[in-house]
């Protein structure tokens, strides 16, 4: 066979093997998350998220979008945020601060497991992500509140 095709085929096959391995990780994870959602495990976790939300100077209503984004991904979190705005729970300031946090720190279980499967250390990735998100969001809250005071 043409050497170029051989190399390409080898690469594609390697890719397929990778996808298969990643599937074995992603499938159980998503099933577990759906089951947890079925048992409303999230509502209990929202209570635990309260101190985090307070640290970020956000109202209680921000806990759910924050948790959903952190666990399920940015699209789910953004959907909840858009809904919160429409219903009036969160103001522009809250959305801005929450978005800073969420844009850095979202989809944790999936992302960490996937990169963990290719050889990274998930603890380090988790710690760096959460800490940097917290710092950035807290700073954003501070700057927003200060600019309001100075007006």
């Amino acid at each position: 066979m043409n050497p170029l095709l051989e190399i390409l085929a080898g690469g594609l096959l390697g890719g397929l093997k990778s996808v298969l391995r990643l599937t074995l990780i992603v499938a159980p994870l998503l099933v577990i998350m759906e089951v947890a959602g079925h048992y409303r495990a999230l509502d209990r976790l929202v209570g635990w998220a309260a101190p985090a939300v307070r640290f970020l100077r956000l109202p209680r209503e921000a806990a759910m979008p924050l948790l959903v984004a952190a666990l399920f991904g940015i699209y789910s979190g953004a959907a909840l945020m858009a809904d919160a705005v429409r219903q009036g729970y969160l103001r522009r300031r809250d959305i801005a601060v929450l978005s800073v946090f969420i844009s850095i720190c979202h989809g944790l279980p999936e992302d960490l497991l996937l990169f963990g499967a290719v050889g990274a250390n998930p603890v380090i990735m988790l710690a760096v992500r959460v800490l940097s998100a917290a710092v950035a969001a807290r700073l954003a809250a501070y700057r927003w509140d200060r600019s309001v005071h100075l007006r």
Partner: protein
Amino acid sequence: MRELVIPVRKGLIRAGRIIVMMAVVVVPVSGIIALLEAYLVLDYVASFFQPVLKHLGLPGETALPLSLGFFVSFYASLGAVEALFLTTREVTLVGVMVLIAHDLFAECAVCRLAGWSFWKPAFLRLAVALSCGALVNLACLMARWGG
């Protein structure tokens, strides 16, 4: 027990969608990288980016998973990392940066839709990602992990 059928099925369907997304991206990326590596293009790219990435403690070829992760897709970066041969420390460092700043185009569009801004998250995330990369690299140097 029977009540679990619905969530399990929903989970499997969601997993199926993600797997298709991954397959569409990871398989071609792996093929392309195999070709780039065989035809020495990878070495050229690696030596080109080495001077910059040296400051993050990473080999030049990580320019590929990094740029793929930032500007294309998280799964593309994953495929690239799988196709390259990197140490745990290097993969962790790439992971830290890509996890903070990935799918920038798509996700910034979502941020805009949710009521924030498009460019702010882009610059913020890239800046945070690169600084965290530098900081973690420093920590690795101090803890004498790999090199």
